[in-house]
């Protein structure tokens, strides 16, 4: 809301079709918001719940919040995809039909709801006195339908994709209106403001004639620029894998995995999950490409490396963000543990703790797996490719980290703790499951790194695959230690 207010207040509003739809959105969505405040009050909601008042509220929110902006977006960006913009005359007619139609349809439903008409009914007794308002709503519905028909006619008459697009018909200032063919922009521009096409008048022609970055492909493959996050200083040239079916394959089986879980087809779901992981591994095989010896010029005299590792690399940041997300998940779990311990003593029912040698043995295995990764990292420093000890250490780390999880599980099971025993049992087993999940992921990543090193794709320079594996490994060890502290040390301190 604040973004809209400031955008409209700072600019000079042009009353074209997209603006109409945006103003319509503000009106309708605000009304839906106001009734939202009404139904948020329990005494009012007690009366309005399951009546047509709610139907009216929902449609004001959804049509205001989703349908009107969608039409606005369509009218605004159509010239970016079509050789002709859509018609202003038809667009405005459609807007008025839709705006009046939606209000005539849904406003009376508020009143009907307050008169007691329940939702989810298709008919009602004649003596209720609801006929006239329902008739009015029906007239509004036909009007809305007519509005959509006008949009469809406009599309049929004017929407012409697959040709050169109409271009910047609004004289807009933002980058999506740069001239582009099938290849996105011809060169990647340097911009200095929020509306670069207004503030840099020659920008469009300079981009089109390739005066900025990457007008060609210096390495001959698919590539893009990686820049610093705040000031966008070019840092290196990222080479991207070419077209592949692995992505489609992974996407399909990922979707099938989750849909399978939803409809409780667990065995097919896990087969699909396994195939999705295979697809991702095939896809990842071609990332982290072999470093080129020479840096390349990206334009304007700037020469950049084609391979970097460490904190400049984009995937290092990807891993850090993944770790942050995992950390938030783990913190929520710790919070649940503390909350249940403190506030729900009646369901907590803490069982006896395993003897201290169980967590100590678990910690020792974690530490040993950490040392394996640390040692492997040291072996990767030399100028020649990694020796066989590198692979051995990476393979050895897998049973160690899985063994740590297994020991922790055994420690709890020897005392007969089961997940369904109590809130305590459920929380402890959730810690175990989360750490077990991380162990499985680490095992896959470690095997993948070893497989890559067998074909000579992991060495002192080409080391991003190993670095990412080690980053997650270090996090998982830290999380494992934190779990041990909260499950074994914390109860001993507070009791």
């Amino acid at each position: 809301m604040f973004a809209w207010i400031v955008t409209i207040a700072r600019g000079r509003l042009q009353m074209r079709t997209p603006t109409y739809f945006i103003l319509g959105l503000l009106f309708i969505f605000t009304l839906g918001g106001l009734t939202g405040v009404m139904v948020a009050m329990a005494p009012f909601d007690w009366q309005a719940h399951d009546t047509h008042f709610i139907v009216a509220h929902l449609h004001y929110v959804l049509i205001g919040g989703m349908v009107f902006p969608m039409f606005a977006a369509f009218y605004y960006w159509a010239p970016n995809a079509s050789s002709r913009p859509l018609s202003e005359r038809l667009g405005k007619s459609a807007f008025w039909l839709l705006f009046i139609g939606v209000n005539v349809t849904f406003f009376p439903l508020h009143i009907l709801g307050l008169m007691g008409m329940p939702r989810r009914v298709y008919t009602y007794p004649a003596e209720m006195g609801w006929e006239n308002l329902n008739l009015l709503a029906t007239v509004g519905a036909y009007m809305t339908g007519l509005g959509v028909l006008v949009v469809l006619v406009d599309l049929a008459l004017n929407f012409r994709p697959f040709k050169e697009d109409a271009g910047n018909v609004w004289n807009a200032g933002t980058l999506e209106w740069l001239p582009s063919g099938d290849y996105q922009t011809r060169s990647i521009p340097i911009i200095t403001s929020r509306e670069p096409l207004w503030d840099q008048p020659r920008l469009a022609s300079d981009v089109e004639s390739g005066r900025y970055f990457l007008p060609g492909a210096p390495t001959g493959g698919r590539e893009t620029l990686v820049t610093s996050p705040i000031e966008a200083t070019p840092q290196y040239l990222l080479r991207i894998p070419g077209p592949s079916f692995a992505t489609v394959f992974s996407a399909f089986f990922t979707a099938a995995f989750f849909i399978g879980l939803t409809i409780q087809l667990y065995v097919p779901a896990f087969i699909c999950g396994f195939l999705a992981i295979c697809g991702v591994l095939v896809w990842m095989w071609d990332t982290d490409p072999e470093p080129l010896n020479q840096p390349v010029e990206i334009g304007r005299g700037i020469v950049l490396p084609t391979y970097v590792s460490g904190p400049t690399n984009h995937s290092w940041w990807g891993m850090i963000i993944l770790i942050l997300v995992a950390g938030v998940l783990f913190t929520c779990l710790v919070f649940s543990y503390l909350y249940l311990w403190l506030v729900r003593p009646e369901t907590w029912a803490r069982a006896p703790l395993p003897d201290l040698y169980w967590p100590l043995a678990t910690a020792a295995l974690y530490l040993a797996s950490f040392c394996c990764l640390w040692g492997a990292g040291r072996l990767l420093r030399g100028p020649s490719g990694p020796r066989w000890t590198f692979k051995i250490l990476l393979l050895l780390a897998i049973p160690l980290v899985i063994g740590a999880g297994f020991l922790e599980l055994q420690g709890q099971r020897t005392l007969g703790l089961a997940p369904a025993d109590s809130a305590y049992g459920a929380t402890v087993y959730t810690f175990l499951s989360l750490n077990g999940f991380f162990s499985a992921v680490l095992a896959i990543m470690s095997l993948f790194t070893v497989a890559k090193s067998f074909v000579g794709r992991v060495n002192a320079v080409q080391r991003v695959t190993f670095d990412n594996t080690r980053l997650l490994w270090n996090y998982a060890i830290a999380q494992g230690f934190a779990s041990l502290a909260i499950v074994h040390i914390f109860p001993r301190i507070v009791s």
Partner: protein
Amino acid sequence: MAAQSLRLSTFLFAGGLFTWAIHFTVLYGFNALACGRRFSEVSLAGVSIVVIATLAITFLAVLLLACIVIIAFAKMNSPAYRAPTIAFLRYVSIGGAGLSFVAIVFSATAGLMLPACL
């Protein structure tokens, strides 16, 4: 120099919001402990321990916010901090600290005025 000023500005930019988050967590945690472990009735010189803790935590948080705002203002005139990105981050730092101040006072007011346990 520029990289250093950028790093400090980024740190300040997040500082206010982090202070808010930590203040909220500590206040919430202390209140929950006081009720769950039944020491909310303890008082020092006639003042409840929950009130004392709330005031102390809030004082520290406001002090931290004041430091953030003072550093952001103090750096305003040095040339390395006049670059548009850094100037923007500085204004966001001050705005974030202001927003956090309102939120911290709001949480503390609830801690001071409402009974610690229901």
